[in-house]
């Protein structure tokens, strides 16, 4: 295991394992056989903080368009709709999180995974970034995020 890459969110060091791939909507992806398993990155979890409620709009087994609305999340700091990181068949939701979504906070890169998608075609995987590319993306995103948060607070 190589050391994870680190992005500094103010004082907070967000870590990103180099073994994983990353989607623009701040989910990590791990290829397991022919499906990708997704979860929230340290960046997302830091913004959300304690997760109180997670709900999906449908049961597993459905075909998704990229960016299709999947469900919603409520946490200490935010609430948001959630969207598909890539198109394909959603094969599995992490049922453990339905009873207790705090698994997302406890083990975001492990037991706190969200769902698995069988990609629609091989090309979709090229939408995913490696950790270094994600970090470059975050440089810009972090500025926008701060503006968004400040805008909503004032």
């Amino acid at each position, binding site marked *: 295991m190589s050391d994870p890459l680190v992005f500094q969110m103010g004082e907070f060091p967000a870590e990103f394992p180099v073994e994983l791939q990353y989607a623009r909507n701040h989910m990590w992806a791990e290829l397991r056989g022919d499906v990708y398993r997704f979860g929230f990155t340290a960046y997302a979890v830091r913004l959300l903080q304690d*997760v*109180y*409620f997670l*709900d*999906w*709009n*449908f*049961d597993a087994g*459905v*075909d998704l368009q990229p960016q299709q609305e999947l469900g*919603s999340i*409520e946490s200490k700091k935010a609430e948001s709709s959630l969207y598909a990181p890539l198109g394909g068949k959603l094969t599995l939701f992490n*049922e453990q999180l*339905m009873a*207790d*979504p*705090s698994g997302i906070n406890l083990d975001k890169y492990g037991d706190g995974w969200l769902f698995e998608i069988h990609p629609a075609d091989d090309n979709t995987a090229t939408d995913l970034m490696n950790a270094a590319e994600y970090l470059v993306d975050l440089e810009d995103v972090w500025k926008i995020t701060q503006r968004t948060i400040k805008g909503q607070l004032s």
Partner: protein
Amino acid sequence: MGFPVFISLGQSHHPAKRELEKEIAGQLHQHPDFQVTMLTNLYDLKPNGPAIEALRAVEGEMVVFSWNYQRAAHWILDRNDIRGSVGEVELQPDSGDDDDELEDELEEDDGEQVPRVLDGRPLPDRQIYCVNLQSSSSAEDFIEEAERIAASSLGQWIQGDPSEEQLDRFRNPINDTAQGPGSLPPTIEEENGRRWYPVIDFSRCTNCMECVDFCLFGVYGVDRAETILVEQPDNCRKGCPACSRVCPENAIVFPQHKTPAIAGAPVNVGGLKIDLSLLFGKPEAADVAARERDEQLMLAGRAPVDSDEQPLEKRQLGKPAGPADELDALLDELETLE
């Protein structure tokens, strides 16, 4: 035995919500006049599980606290054969509309006498008080409401004819049977997954059968008296509220839906504000419903219905409909407001 109170715990792990549930449960549990039971989320309960059995075992009046609109909770219970008339609950969520009198008036004006399913269905002689936990963030408000309900329904609850002295003892209890502080009432826990299904408000349903025609997943059926019922609730497609949009009487409730009108908010809430979005190009409810149903059909690997070739057939052809009438109604509403 105290006055039966049930507290249905929400799905959210929000500490404020959890705390509110616990505080209400704890305080009422210490109150000698209440018999409190906590339940897992009312909507997700198994049809013949222990929690439903406990609710069924109550023959008289009861209070049910849950994170649902009163209409939603009442008709969830009714579907499980826990029946009674709707008890008047004073503590209601803030609808953001203080003009209650006008609202009441409008409700009465809506006096078109259409027979409802409930008219032909006698209810047991008791009231069920479903209190929405979203109505306040203060446990005190809920305790007071429970006390008010228990006091106002004393007549039915205490069999016979209580003397003034007895009533007084009820209203001002000596707390000698109270439990220690912090103790909580028993909880009936069920390991249920989340469910998703429609709940019919039979005080509004006219048995028009639009829903049974519309739903292609076999959720609806009819009983021996040819009355509509939610026959196969778990055939319902998670997240799809389409049938509630086609219901002409707003009688179909999806308690967990984000939109208050679909989740069972009082039917006239928001009715005062004129929503012109239909005139400005918002798709008609029927179109939204057809699109939602098509999405679900495709998700289930079935062919969508071509709405242009097979337009939604209207059962209620006698009723005037169409954009002109809607506009007329809007203008009328504007005039009455002036």
